[in-house]
């Protein structure tokens, strides 16, 4: 009774949100989990197939390629957009015209990934980067970028970096602007150089922002879909698919809902597990 008096109001406030999450999120996950153990194709009744869909993920080269590409995307979009975002924010921190550069770098993020994809398809076409390479005598470097694995994945990562760096830079700039001045003054008095100040003062103080930026980049990299669908649709010959693209193709193009569900469960488990370990490690350190 006391507990109800103490927490009753709070429960009433949270109940609608909790019910919505149970109705639309938890039940969807449970249904997806069930479908992943069946051969459901959307027409016939689903038949139980046990772990067959999961086993196939580690036997079929298409899925193995997809898994490899996902890991490449995760590593590349963690290292480059976050690293470059931090670099640009530090470079822009004290220069004149910061606002102009901030806007220029942030502009790609204001575009939808579909538009970014279309722009980069043109840039990677015969009349784009290849034309420039040919004009300057670098014909040998003029590849059919989007049709040549693994360069098609790298090319799309470049497009993604172009789009994603600006927002990370902005978050780091906000973080840098809110850092206390005293540690920097103390470091200056002690004669610390710029590099030492950056490693020993700036980076540790920026940690809360870095955790958020890396955490978001991590999850975003696992679910990457839009830009790949626009630029290559996972092709040619399924060479540039990531797990999210494979899940979509299996579910909605060839109607292997069971296989698609298994991929989505694996993707979710990997994302949550990686995020969990990352957050646990970093927050324990932070604490």
């Amino acid at each position, binding site marked *: 009774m006391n507990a109800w008096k103490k927490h009753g109001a709070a429960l009433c406030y949270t109940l609608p949100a909790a019910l919505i999450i149970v109705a639309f*999120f938890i039940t*969807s996950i449970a249904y997806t989990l069930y479908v992943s153990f069946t051969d459901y*194709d*959307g*027409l*016939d009744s689903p038949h139980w197939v046990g772990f067959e869909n999961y086993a196939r993920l580690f036997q079929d080269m298409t899925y193995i390629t997809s898994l490899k590409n996902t890991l490449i995307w995760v590593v590349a979009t963690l290292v480059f957009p976050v690293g470059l975002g931090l670099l640009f924010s530090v470079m822009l921190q004290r220069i004149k015209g910061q606002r102009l550069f901030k806007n220029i770098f942030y502009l790609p993020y204001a575009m939808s990934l579909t538009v970014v994809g279309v722009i980069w398809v043109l840039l990677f076409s015969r009349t784009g980067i290849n034309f420039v390479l040919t004009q300057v005598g670098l014909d040998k470097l003029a590849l*059919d970028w989007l*049709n*040549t694995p693994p360069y098609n994945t790298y090319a799309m990562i470049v497009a993604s970096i172009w789009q994603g760096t600006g927002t990370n830079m902005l978050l780091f700039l906000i973080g840098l602007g809110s850092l206390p001045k005293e540690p920097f003054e103390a470091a200056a008095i002690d004669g610390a150089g710029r590099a030492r100040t950056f490693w020993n003062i700036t980076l540790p103080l920026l940690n*809360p922002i870095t*955790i*958020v930026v890396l*955490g*978001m980049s991590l*999850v*975003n990299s*696992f*679910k990457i*879909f*839009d830009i790949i669908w626009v630029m290559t*649709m996972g*092709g*040619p*010959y*399924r060479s540039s698919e990531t797990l*999210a693209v494979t899940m*979509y193709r299996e*579910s*909605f*193009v*060839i*109607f*292997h809902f069971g296989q698609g569900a298994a991929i*989505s469960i694996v993707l*979710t488990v990997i*994302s*949550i597990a990686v*995020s969990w370990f990352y*957050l646990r490690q970093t*927050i324990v350190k*932070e*604490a």
Partner: protein
Amino acid sequence: MKRIGLFALLTVLILSALTACGGNGKEQAPSSSAPGSAPAGSAAASPTGGGEQGTVQADFYYDNPAWTDYLKEINPITLKNSQTELKGVPYNEPTSFQTAIRVGFTTKEAADIFKWWNGYQMKELVDAGYLADMTNEWKEMVADGVDPAVASTLTFDGKTYGIPAGIHYWVMFYNKKIFDENNLQPPKTWDEFININETLKSKGITPIGTTSVDVWNGFIWFEEFMIRTHPDVYRKLVVGEAKYTDPEVVEAMKLWQSFYDKGYFDKPTDFQKESAPAFAKGQFAMYLMGSWYSDYFKGAGMEPGKDFGAFVLPSVTPEAGNVVISEVTPFLVSQNAKNKDNAVKALVALTKKEANEKMLSLYGGVPIRKDVESPDPIIHSLTSDISAGQYQTITRFWEATPSELSEYASSEFIRFMLNPDQLDRVLDNVQKKAEQYWAEHK
């Protein structure tokens, strides 16, 4: 406490991001409806739903928004002949369209009428019992002038479903200006075809354009080389009675490979944006595609019959005979449609002479009636040639073999197009997939 708060906040952010990921696919269906169209779920099967008393409306689902204009032209005809008005439910692309149709079967909102694909894609709907049987109506339609031969691709176990709304042949388009300048004529034999390629090459003109932008583009030349060499093996291959590693298939693939070795093919272009303008500019002289691609050339400023023509490729050997790939687009009625009877009547009305003429004038293709001629000079000439040569029609690879295999094999054939030296690997991969599929679906 602070630590727990930060941890909880980040967990919520990550879960939100994952939820957003799951929502991507589902968002496409509603957004793919063309502006001003009826929402996918709106059944309009009310007997008083039409503008005039006694008329009924039937929902018509399709994945080509341009057909909305077709409905405006065709509705007066269906109203006159069946008192039925078709209400369009357009989708912008096939993926969300197919999902909506399939999911619809399991609800009370199954599509009254919908566009589909023939062959295996239609067979799985027949096997699941989702299609309305129109065998009796076909007797009436044939008596009215519809060619009974066009029912064959829509007939399964003696029952016929739907109507063939569009029939197209897969042909070689050629640039007339380039052919005229080089004194070339459409070939009657394979040797003549090879001579055309050699002549063009010797003049510095790339003979043939290709495309590889979509997965399905991969089957175009595979099926062509197969039916020009061993059409019987092709027919067995698509139903799992032959192997992709059989000598006849390897022979066809080596012939395809030789075209790359000899430099007959241009680098692949995007068939939607690049191929037609490139063909119009003379970047290459020929292009193999369904006869519907004529519209793309028209869009690039070319006039059919004057600037470009089309021919059926000759067979490599006389034993292969006169064969041509056909693509049939059926309109079907759901067995559990709310408005099934009226939808069936509307489809019958679409086969009337006036309706077929209207369809041909708007979207081209081969007439489904004996008393109708195509207004398109290219289609007219092709149908005459095909009729005179007693060509046998062969179902397009995409529909002739189960979707899972056509998708995978086409994707692998694109691997071959980009890496012709990987012939053996491609055939091995496809055969492995085929063995797995047929073992599971015996």
